[in-house]
Protein backbone atom coordinates (compact mmCIF):
# COMPACT_ATOMS: atom_id res chain seq x y z
CA UNK A 1 0.00 0.00 0.00
CA UNK A 2 2.76 2.38 0.91
CA UNK A 3 4.44 2.24 -2.45
CA UNK A 4 1.51 1.35 -4.60
CA UNK A 5 0.82 5.02 -5.08
CA UNK A 6 3.73 5.91 -7.21
CA UNK A 7 4.00 2.67 -9.10
CA UNK A 8 1.38 3.50 -11.72
CA UNK A 9 3.10 6.80 -12.39
CA UNK A 10 6.54 5.36 -12.84
CA UNK A 11 6.24 3.71 -16.21
CA UNK A 12 8.51 0.90 -17.19
CA UNK A 13 11.04 0.74 -19.93
CA UNK A 14 10.43 -0.59 -23.37
CA UNK A 15 12.54 -3.02 -25.26
CA UNK A 16 14.61 -2.01 -28.24
CA UNK A 17 12.40 -1.72 -31.34
CA UNK A 18 14.34 -4.59 -32.91
CA UNK A 19 12.44 -6.87 -30.56
CA UNK A 20 9.49 -6.41 -32.88
CA UNK A 21 11.14 -9.15 -34.91
CA UNK A 22 10.82 -11.42 -31.92
CA UNK A 23 7.19 -10.47 -31.42
CA UNK A 24 6.60 -10.89 -35.13
CA UNK A 25 7.84 -14.45 -34.92
CA UNK A 26 5.67 -15.00 -31.87
CA UNK A 27 2.45 -13.64 -33.28
CA UNK A 28 3.22 -15.39 -36.53
CA UNK A 29 3.30 -18.68 -34.69
CA UNK A 30 0.03 -17.90 -32.95
CA UNK A 31 -1.75 -16.83 -36.10
CA UNK A 32 -0.49 -19.75 -38.18
CA UNK A 33 -3.77 -21.47 -37.39
CA UNK A 34 -5.57 -18.78 -39.39
CA UNK A 35 -3.62 -19.53 -42.57
CA UNK A 36 -6.34 -21.76 -44.06
CA UNK A 37 -8.59 -18.70 -43.91
CA UNK A 38 -6.69 -17.10 -46.76
CA UNK A 39 -8.01 -19.43 -49.51
CA UNK A 40 -11.45 -19.29 -47.88
CA UNK A 41 -11.33 -15.49 -48.10
CA UNK A 42 -10.37 -15.70 -51.75
CA UNK A 43 -13.24 -18.04 -52.52
CA UNK A 44 -15.71 -15.97 -50.54
CA UNK A 45 -14.89 -12.68 -52.26
CA UNK A 46 -15.70 -14.26 -55.59
CA UNK A 47 -19.11 -15.13 -54.27
CA UNK A 48 -19.55 -11.74 -52.72
CA UNK A 49 -18.84 -9.69 -55.81
CA UNK A 50 -20.81 -12.04 -57.96
CA UNK A 51 -18.25 -12.01 -60.75
CA UNK A 52 -14.75 -13.38 -61.10
CA UNK A 53 -12.18 -11.11 -59.51
CA UNK A 54 -8.61 -11.36 -60.70
CA UNK A 55 -7.13 -14.18 -58.66
CA UNK A 56 -3.63 -12.81 -58.64
CA UNK A 57 -4.55 -9.36 -57.41
CA UNK A 58 -6.88 -10.77 -54.84
CA UNK A 59 -4.24 -13.11 -53.43
CA UNK A 60 -1.68 -10.33 -53.39
CA UNK A 61 -4.08 -7.99 -51.61
CA UNK A 62 -4.93 -10.55 -48.95
CA UNK A 63 -1.31 -11.51 -48.38
CA UNK A 64 -0.35 -7.85 -48.04
CA UNK A 65 -3.24 -7.25 -45.66
CA UNK A 66 -2.11 -10.20 -43.57
CA UNK A 67 1.44 -8.88 -43.50
CA UNK A 68 0.26 -5.43 -42.39
CA UNK A 69 -1.86 -7.06 -39.72
CA UNK A 70 1.09 -9.09 -38.47
CA UNK A 71 3.44 -6.12 -38.37
CA UNK A 72 0.78 -4.02 -36.67
CA UNK A 73 0.29 -6.70 -34.06
CA UNK A 74 4.03 -6.96 -33.48
CA UNK A 75 4.23 -3.20 -33.06
CA UNK A 76 1.35 -3.21 -30.59
CA UNK A 77 2.95 -6.02 -28.65
CA UNK A 78 6.15 -4.08 -28.47
CA UNK A 79 4.30 -0.95 -27.30
CA UNK A 80 2.52 -2.91 -24.61
CA UNK A 81 5.62 -4.60 -23.25
CA UNK A 82 6.95 -2.70 -20.27
CA UNK A 83 9.44 -3.76 -17.67
CA UNK A 84 11.21 -2.28 -14.70
CA UNK A 85 13.32 -3.34 -11.79
CA UNK A 86 12.48 -1.85 -8.43
CA UNK A 87 13.57 -2.92 -4.97
CA UNK A 88 14.96 -6.16 -6.27
CA UNK A 89 11.76 -7.09 -8.02
CA UNK A 90 11.57 -7.52 -11.75
CA UNK A 91 8.22 -6.36 -13.02
CA UNK A 92 6.96 -7.06 -16.51
CA UNK A 93 3.70 -6.00 -18.05
CA UNK A 94 2.62 -7.23 -21.45
CA UNK A 95 -0.20 -8.64 -23.51
CA UNK A 96 -2.50 -7.45 -26.19
CA UNK A 97 -5.98 -8.60 -25.31
CA UNK A 98 -5.13 -10.31 -22.09
CA UNK A 99 -2.94 -8.10 -19.94
CA UNK A 100 -0.36 -10.02 -18.01
CA UNK A 101 1.72 -8.75 -15.17
CA UNK A 102 4.60 -10.61 -13.68
CA UNK A 103 6.63 -10.05 -10.58
CA UNK A 104 9.80 -11.92 -9.80
CA UNK A 105 11.77 -11.09 -6.70
CA UNK A 106 15.50 -11.49 -6.95
CA UNK A 107 15.69 -14.13 -4.23
CA UNK A 108 13.67 -16.44 -6.39
CA UNK A 109 15.62 -16.19 -9.61
CA UNK A 110 17.41 -19.42 -10.29
CA UNK A 111 19.10 -18.54 -13.53
CA UNK A 112 19.62 -15.63 -15.86
CA UNK A 113 20.40 -16.43 -19.47
CA UNK A 114 21.60 -14.06 -22.06
CA UNK A 115 21.87 -15.00 -25.67
CA UNK A 116 22.81 -13.01 -28.71
CA UNK A 117 20.98 -14.02 -31.81
CA UNK A 118 22.24 -13.09 -35.23
CA UNK A 119 19.95 -10.14 -35.75
CA UNK A 120 20.64 -8.90 -32.24
CA UNK A 121 24.35 -8.98 -32.94
CA UNK A 122 24.01 -6.38 -35.67
CA UNK A 123 22.56 -3.90 -33.21
CA UNK A 124 24.67 -4.89 -30.22
CA UNK A 125 21.72 -6.24 -28.32
CA UNK A 126 21.16 -9.27 -26.11
CA UNK A 127 18.22 -11.35 -25.05
CA UNK A 128 17.77 -11.90 -21.35
CA UNK A 129 15.83 -14.84 -19.99
CA UNK A 130 14.87 -15.10 -16.36
CA UNK A 131 13.98 -18.42 -14.82
CA UNK A 132 12.62 -19.29 -11.43
CA UNK A 133 12.01 -22.70 -9.94
CA UNK A 134 8.29 -22.34 -10.56
CA UNK A 135 6.14 -22.87 -13.56
CA UNK A 136 6.92 -25.08 -16.47
CA UNK A 137 10.03 -25.55 -18.53
CA UNK A 138 9.94 -22.34 -20.48
CA UNK A 139 11.58 -19.30 -18.93
CA UNK A 140 9.32 -17.11 -16.84
CA UNK A 141 10.38 -13.88 -18.43
CA UNK A 142 12.07 -13.10 -21.71
CA UNK A 143 13.42 -9.65 -22.44
CA UNK A 144 14.33 -9.86 -26.08
CA UNK A 145 16.60 -7.21 -27.55
CA UNK A 146 17.89 -4.99 -24.81
CA UNK A 147 21.23 -3.28 -24.95
CA UNK A 148 24.15 -5.05 -23.33
CA UNK A 149 24.54 -2.20 -20.84
CA UNK A 150 20.91 -2.51 -19.87
CA UNK A 151 21.32 -6.24 -19.34
CA UNK A 152 24.26 -5.56 -17.05
CA UNK A 153 22.19 -3.03 -15.16
CA UNK A 154 19.34 -5.49 -14.68
CA UNK A 155 21.74 -8.19 -13.56
CA UNK A 156 23.31 -5.84 -11.06
CA UNK A 157 19.95 -4.76 -9.72
CA UNK A 158 18.91 -8.35 -9.33
CA UNK A 159 22.01 -9.01 -7.31
CA UNK A 160 23.95 -11.21 -9.67
CA UNK A 161 27.63 -10.71 -10.35
CA UNK A 162 27.88 -7.94 -12.83
CA UNK A 163 31.63 -7.68 -13.10
CA UNK A 164 31.50 -10.91 -15.06
CA UNK A 165 29.74 -8.79 -17.62
CA UNK A 166 27.64 -9.61 -20.60
CA UNK A 167 29.50 -10.62 -23.70
CA UNK A 168 29.43 -7.48 -25.73
CA UNK A 169 29.60 -7.62 -29.46
CA UNK A 170 33.24 -6.63 -29.44
CA UNK A 171 34.14 -9.28 -26.98
CA UNK A 172 32.36 -11.94 -28.92
CA UNK A 173 34.38 -11.06 -31.98
CA UNK A 174 37.56 -11.07 -29.99
CA UNK A 175 36.79 -14.41 -28.46
CA UNK A 176 36.73 -16.00 -31.87
CA UNK A 177 40.45 -15.44 -32.02
CA UNK A 178 41.29 -16.31 -28.45
CA UNK A 179 39.28 -19.48 -28.14
CA UNK A 180 41.71 -21.53 -30.16
CA UNK A 181 44.23 -21.18 -27.37
CA UNK A 182 44.82 -24.04 -25.02
CA UNK A 183 42.21 -24.31 -22.34
CA UNK A 184 43.12 -22.25 -19.37
CA UNK A 185 42.04 -23.65 -16.06
CA UNK A 186 42.70 -20.83 -13.73
CA UNK A 187 40.75 -19.15 -11.04
CA UNK A 188 37.67 -21.29 -11.31
CA UNK A 189 37.49 -20.64 -14.98
CA UNK A 190 37.47 -23.38 -17.53
CA UNK A 191 37.50 -23.10 -21.23
CA UNK A 192 37.04 -25.82 -23.77
CA UNK A 193 39.67 -25.78 -26.46
CA UNK A 194 38.89 -26.02 -30.14
CA UNK A 195 40.23 -29.56 -30.31
CA UNK A 196 38.10 -30.66 -27.42
CA UNK A 197 35.08 -29.10 -28.99
CA UNK A 198 35.75 -31.00 -32.17
CA UNK A 199 36.13 -34.32 -30.38
CA UNK A 200 33.03 -33.61 -28.40
CA UNK A 201 30.92 -32.95 -31.43
CA UNK A 202 32.22 -36.18 -32.95
CA UNK A 203 31.13 -38.28 -30.02
CA UNK A 204 27.75 -36.67 -29.66
CA UNK A 205 26.18 -40.08 -30.23
CA UNK A 206 22.63 -39.54 -29.19
CA UNK A 207 21.97 -36.60 -31.40
CA UNK A 208 23.21 -38.46 -34.45
CA UNK A 209 20.91 -41.39 -33.89
CA UNK A 210 17.91 -39.11 -33.68
CA UNK A 211 19.02 -37.33 -36.78
CA UNK A 212 19.46 -40.54 -38.69
CA UNK A 213 16.08 -41.89 -37.68
CA UNK A 214 14.38 -38.68 -38.71
CA UNK A 215 16.31 -38.40 -41.92
CA UNK A 216 15.66 -42.05 -42.77
CA UNK A 217 11.92 -41.58 -42.36
CA UNK A 218 12.03 -38.44 -44.44
CA UNK A 219 14.04 -40.16 -47.13
CA UNK A 220 11.60 -43.00 -47.34
CA UNK A 221 8.65 -40.67 -47.79
CA UNK A 222 10.49 -38.62 -50.35
CA UNK A 223 11.46 -41.79 -52.17
CA UNK A 224 7.89 -43.03 -52.36
CA UNK A 225 6.66 -39.70 -53.57
CA UNK A 226 9.36 -39.47 -56.20
CA UNK A 227 8.68 -42.95 -57.50
CA UNK A 228 5.21 -41.79 -58.45
CA UNK A 229 6.49 -38.98 -60.61
CA UNK A 230 8.06 -39.21 -64.02
CA UNK A 231 11.07 -37.20 -62.91
CA UNK A 232 12.20 -40.14 -60.85
CA UNK A 233 12.95 -42.25 -63.90
CA UNK A 234 15.21 -39.55 -65.24
CA UNK A 235 17.16 -39.11 -62.02
CA UNK A 236 17.18 -42.80 -61.34
CA UNK A 237 19.10 -43.59 -64.52
CA UNK A 238 21.86 -41.19 -63.62
CA UNK A 239 22.13 -42.17 -59.99
CA UNK A 240 22.02 -45.89 -60.70
CA UNK A 241 25.79 -45.67 -61.09
CA UNK A 242 26.13 -44.93 -57.41
CA UNK A 243 23.62 -47.67 -56.59
CA UNK A 244 21.44 -47.71 -53.54
CA UNK A 245 24.04 -48.65 -50.90
CA UNK A 246 26.24 -45.86 -52.20
CA UNK A 247 23.41 -43.38 -51.95
CA UNK A 248 22.62 -44.44 -48.44
CA UNK A 249 26.25 -44.01 -47.47
CA UNK A 250 26.32 -40.54 -48.99
CA UNK A 251 23.16 -39.66 -47.16
CA UNK A 252 24.45 -40.94 -43.83
CA UNK A 253 27.65 -38.99 -44.19
CA UNK A 254 25.72 -35.89 -45.17
CA UNK A 255 23.39 -35.99 -42.18
CA UNK A 256 26.29 -36.77 -39.90
CA UNK A 257 28.13 -33.75 -41.20
CA UNK A 258 25.10 -31.54 -40.71
CA UNK A 259 24.64 -32.78 -37.17
CA UNK A 260 28.31 -32.27 -36.52
CA UNK A 261 28.29 -28.73 -37.77
CA UNK A 262 25.13 -27.99 -35.81
CA UNK A 263 26.55 -29.22 -32.53
CA UNK A 264 29.85 -27.56 -33.26
CA UNK A 265 28.14 -24.21 -33.68
CA UNK A 266 26.12 -24.76 -30.54
CA UNK A 267 28.98 -25.81 -28.34
CA UNK A 268 31.70 -23.66 -29.80
CA UNK A 269 33.67 -21.64 -27.31
CA UNK A 270 32.34 -23.36 -24.24
CA UNK A 271 33.44 -21.51 -21.16
CA UNK A 272 32.63 -22.07 -17.53
CA UNK A 273 33.28 -19.60 -14.77
CA UNK A 274 32.70 -20.00 -11.08
CA UNK A 275 32.16 -16.70 -9.38
CA UNK A 276 31.26 -16.71 -5.73
CA UNK A 277 27.94 -18.50 -5.45
CA UNK A 278 27.10 -18.40 -9.12
CA UNK A 279 28.24 -20.32 -12.17
CA UNK A 280 28.47 -18.71 -15.56
CA UNK A 281 28.34 -20.80 -18.69
CA UNK A 282 29.01 -19.41 -22.11
CA UNK A 283 28.80 -21.06 -25.46
CA UNK A 284 27.71 -20.73 -29.03
CA UNK A 285 29.12 -19.54 -32.29
CA UNK A 286 26.35 -17.92 -34.27
CA UNK A 287 24.11 -17.39 -31.31
CA UNK A 288 26.15 -16.71 -28.25
CA UNK A 289 24.50 -18.00 -25.12
CA UNK A 290 25.32 -17.26 -21.57
CA UNK A 291 23.73 -18.64 -18.48
CA UNK A 292 24.18 -17.57 -14.89
CA UNK A 293 23.12 -20.13 -12.33
CA UNK A 294 23.05 -19.68 -8.59
CA UNK A 295 24.74 -22.63 -6.94
CA UNK A 296 22.17 -22.88 -4.18
CA UNK A 297 19.53 -23.53 -6.82
CA UNK A 298 21.17 -26.66 -8.14
CA UNK A 299 19.25 -29.79 -7.29
CA UNK A 300 21.49 -32.45 -8.72
CA UNK A 301 24.61 -32.93 -10.79
CA UNK A 302 24.75 -35.91 -13.10
CA UNK A 303 27.91 -37.19 -14.73
CA UNK A 304 27.62 -39.65 -17.58
CA UNK A 305 30.34 -41.37 -19.57
CA UNK A 306 29.38 -43.32 -22.63
CA UNK A 307 31.70 -45.63 -24.52
CA UNK A 308 32.86 -43.03 -26.97
CA UNK A 309 33.45 -40.52 -24.20
CA UNK A 310 35.68 -42.95 -22.35
CA UNK A 311 37.86 -43.35 -25.39
CA UNK A 312 38.80 -39.70 -25.14
CA UNK A 313 38.66 -39.49 -21.39
CA UNK A 314 35.66 -37.23 -21.41
CA UNK A 315 32.43 -37.15 -19.52
CA UNK A 316 29.27 -35.17 -19.75
CA UNK A 317 28.06 -33.21 -16.78
CA UNK A 318 24.47 -32.21 -16.37
CA UNK A 319 23.19 -29.73 -13.85
CA UNK A 320 19.60 -30.27 -12.86
CA UNK A 321 17.66 -27.34 -11.50
CA UNK A 322 14.10 -27.29 -10.34
CA UNK A 323 11.65 -25.93 -12.82
CA UNK A 324 13.98 -25.30 -15.68
CA UNK A 325 16.18 -26.79 -18.31
CA UNK A 326 19.64 -28.08 -17.68
CA UNK A 327 23.10 -27.59 -19.04
CA UNK A 328 25.24 -30.12 -20.74
CA UNK A 329 28.98 -30.07 -21.07
CA UNK A 330 31.89 -32.33 -21.60
CA UNK A 331 35.42 -32.52 -20.50
Amino acid at each position, binding site marked *: *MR*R*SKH*SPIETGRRLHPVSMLYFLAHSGKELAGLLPLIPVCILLTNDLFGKEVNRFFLTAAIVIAAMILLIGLAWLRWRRFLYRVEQG*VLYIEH*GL*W*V*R*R*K*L*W*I*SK*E*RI*SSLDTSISIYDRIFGLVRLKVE*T*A*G*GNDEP*EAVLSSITAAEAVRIQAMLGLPNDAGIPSVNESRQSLATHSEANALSHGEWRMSLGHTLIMTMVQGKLLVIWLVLAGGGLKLWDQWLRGTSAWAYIYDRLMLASIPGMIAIYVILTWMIALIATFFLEYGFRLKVHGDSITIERGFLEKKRKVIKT*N*RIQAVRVTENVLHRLFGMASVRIVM*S*GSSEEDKKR
Partner: protein
Amino acid sequence: MKRIDPRAIHCRRTEGWVSSVGCLIVVVVLGWLTVRYDWPLWIAALTAVISAVIVVLELAVFPRVLYRSWQYAILEKEVELHHGFWVRKRTLIPMSRIQHVNAKQGPIEKGYGLSTVTFATAAGSHHIPALSEEEAERVRRQIAEGANINNEEI
Protein backbone atom coordinates in the same frame (compact mmCIF):
# COMPACT_ATOMS: atom_id res chain seq x y z
CA MET B 1 -11.19 -15.92 5.08
CA LYS B 2 -12.16 -13.46 2.43
CA ARG B 3 -14.42 -13.82 -0.55
CA ILE B 4 -13.39 -12.69 -3.97
CA ASP B 5 -14.60 -9.37 -5.26
CA PRO B 6 -18.43 -9.30 -5.69
CA ARG B 7 -17.96 -7.74 -9.09
CA ALA B 8 -16.78 -11.19 -10.14
CA ILE B 9 -20.44 -12.19 -10.47
CA HIS B 10 -21.13 -9.46 -13.01
CA CYS B 11 -17.87 -10.09 -14.76
CA ARG B 12 -18.58 -13.80 -15.09
CA ARG B 13 -22.08 -13.01 -16.28
CA THR B 14 -20.74 -10.76 -19.01
CA GLU B 15 -18.48 -13.58 -20.11
CA GLY B 16 -21.59 -15.74 -20.01
CA TRP B 17 -23.35 -13.33 -22.37
CA VAL B 18 -20.49 -13.59 -24.81
CA SER B 19 -20.65 -17.37 -24.88
CA SER B 20 -24.46 -17.21 -25.07
CA VAL B 21 -24.21 -15.09 -28.18
CA GLY B 22 -21.79 -17.67 -29.56
CA CYS B 23 -24.33 -20.42 -28.85
CA LEU B 24 -27.09 -18.41 -30.49
CA ILE B 25 -25.02 -17.94 -33.63
CA VAL B 26 -24.39 -21.68 -33.84
CA VAL B 27 -28.12 -22.41 -33.44
CA VAL B 28 -29.10 -19.83 -36.03
CA VAL B 29 -26.59 -21.18 -38.54
CA LEU B 30 -27.80 -24.73 -37.96
CA GLY B 31 -31.41 -23.60 -38.33
CA TRP B 32 -30.62 -21.90 -41.59
CA LEU B 33 -28.83 -25.02 -42.84
CA THR B 34 -31.84 -27.14 -41.87
CA VAL B 35 -34.22 -24.95 -43.87
CA ARG B 36 -31.90 -24.43 -46.82
CA TYR B 37 -30.53 -27.93 -47.33
CA ASP B 38 -33.25 -30.04 -45.70
CA TRP B 39 -31.11 -31.32 -42.88
CA PRO B 40 -32.84 -33.58 -40.38
CA LEU B 41 -34.57 -31.52 -37.76
CA TRP B 42 -33.07 -33.22 -34.72
CA ILE B 43 -29.61 -31.72 -35.26
CA ALA B 44 -30.85 -28.16 -34.87
CA ALA B 45 -33.31 -29.11 -32.13
CA LEU B 46 -30.70 -30.89 -30.04
CA THR B 47 -28.24 -28.03 -30.41
CA ALA B 48 -30.94 -25.58 -29.44
CA VAL B 49 -31.75 -27.53 -26.28
CA ILE B 50 -28.08 -27.89 -25.32
CA SER B 51 -27.52 -24.18 -26.00
CA ALA B 52 -30.49 -23.24 -23.85
CA VAL B 53 -29.08 -25.26 -20.97
CA ILE B 54 -25.63 -23.71 -21.45
CA VAL B 55 -27.11 -20.20 -21.54
CA VAL B 56 -29.04 -20.78 -18.32
CA LEU B 57 -25.95 -22.20 -16.63
CA GLU B 58 -23.70 -19.42 -17.86
CA LEU B 59 -26.03 -16.59 -16.89
CA ALA B 60 -27.75 -17.79 -13.77
CA VAL B 61 -25.66 -20.51 -12.17
CA PHE B 62 -21.94 -20.21 -12.89
CA PRO B 63 -21.45 -16.57 -11.82
CA ARG B 64 -22.85 -17.31 -8.35
CA VAL B 65 -21.06 -20.63 -8.08
CA LEU B 66 -17.79 -18.95 -8.89
CA TYR B 67 -18.34 -16.35 -6.22
CA ARG B 68 -19.53 -18.82 -3.59
CA SER B 69 -16.88 -21.40 -4.20
CA TRP B 70 -13.85 -19.24 -3.63
CA GLN B 71 -12.37 -18.07 -0.40
CA TYR B 72 -8.86 -17.01 0.35
CA ALA B 73 -6.71 -15.60 3.10
CA ILE B 74 -3.31 -14.01 2.77
CA LEU B 75 -1.63 -14.50 6.12
CA GLU B 76 1.77 -13.38 7.24
CA LYS B 77 3.52 -16.61 6.38
CA GLU B 78 1.14 -18.43 4.10
CA VAL B 79 -1.59 -18.15 1.54
CA GLU B 80 -4.70 -20.16 2.20
CA LEU B 81 -7.17 -21.03 -0.53
CA HIS B 82 -10.56 -22.69 -0.17
CA HIS B 83 -12.34 -23.54 -3.34
CA GLY B 84 -14.56 -26.01 -5.09
CA PHE B 85 -18.28 -26.49 -5.23
CA TRP B 86 -18.92 -30.22 -4.98
CA VAL B 87 -15.52 -31.09 -3.69
CA ARG B 88 -14.09 -28.53 -1.31
CA LYS B 89 -10.37 -28.11 -1.58
CA ARG B 90 -8.19 -26.31 0.88
CA THR B 91 -4.72 -25.32 -0.17
CA LEU B 92 -2.03 -23.87 2.02
CA ILE B 93 1.00 -22.34 0.36
CA PRO B 94 3.87 -21.10 2.53
CA MET B 95 5.03 -17.66 1.45
CA SER B 96 8.62 -18.79 1.31
CA ARG B 97 7.73 -21.34 -1.36
CA ILE B 98 6.21 -18.89 -3.79
CA GLN B 99 8.50 -18.35 -6.73
CA HIS B 100 6.83 -15.60 -8.64
CA VAL B 101 3.49 -13.88 -8.94
CA ASN B 102 1.50 -13.39 -12.09
CA ALA B 103 -1.55 -11.26 -12.74
CA LYS B 104 -3.70 -11.82 -15.77
CA GLN B 105 -6.44 -9.56 -17.02
CA GLY B 106 -8.65 -10.36 -19.97
CA PRO B 107 -10.57 -7.66 -21.84
CA ILE B 108 -13.80 -8.30 -19.93
CA GLU B 109 -12.03 -8.46 -16.59
CA LYS B 110 -10.36 -5.18 -17.45
CA GLY B 111 -13.73 -3.53 -17.82
CA TYR B 112 -14.57 -4.56 -14.29
CA GLY B 113 -11.14 -3.79 -12.88
CA LEU B 114 -10.50 -7.36 -11.88
CA SER B 115 -7.56 -9.64 -12.40
CA THR B 116 -6.63 -13.25 -11.79
CA VAL B 117 -3.58 -13.66 -9.61
CA THR B 118 -1.42 -16.75 -9.97
CA PHE B 119 1.27 -17.91 -7.55
CA ALA B 120 3.85 -20.27 -8.94
CA THR B 121 5.60 -22.66 -6.63
CA ALA B 122 8.28 -25.13 -7.65
CA ALA B 123 5.66 -27.84 -7.94
CA GLY B 124 2.92 -26.07 -9.82
CA SER B 125 0.84 -22.94 -9.64
CA HIS B 126 -2.29 -21.82 -7.84
CA HIS B 127 -4.58 -18.99 -8.68
CA ILE B 128 -7.20 -16.75 -7.17
CA PRO B 129 -9.75 -15.58 -9.73
CA ALA B 130 -11.24 -12.10 -9.90
CA LEU B 131 -9.44 -9.98 -7.38
CA SER B 132 -9.85 -6.24 -7.63
CA GLU B 133 -6.77 -4.48 -8.91
CA GLU B 134 -5.98 -2.87 -5.56
CA GLU B 135 -6.41 -6.14 -3.75
CA ALA B 136 -4.23 -7.91 -6.30
CA GLU B 137 -1.53 -5.31 -5.78
CA ARG B 138 -1.77 -5.66 -2.00
CA VAL B 139 -1.54 -9.45 -2.21
CA ARG B 140 1.42 -9.13 -4.50
CA ARG B 141 3.29 -6.79 -2.17
CA GLN B 142 2.62 -8.98 0.82
CA ILE B 143 3.94 -12.00 -1.01
CA ALA B 144 7.03 -10.15 -2.11
CA GLU B 145 7.72 -9.18 1.48
CA GLY B 146 6.91 -12.65 2.75
CA ALA B 147 9.20 -14.19 0.21
CA ASN B 148 12.13 -12.11 1.37
CA ILE B 149 12.11 -13.51 4.88
CA ASN B 150 13.35 -16.95 4.08
CA ASN B 151 15.55 -16.64 1.10
CA GLU B 152 17.82 -19.53 1.96
CA GLU B 153 15.26 -22.15 1.12
CA ILE B 154 13.89 -22.91 -2.26
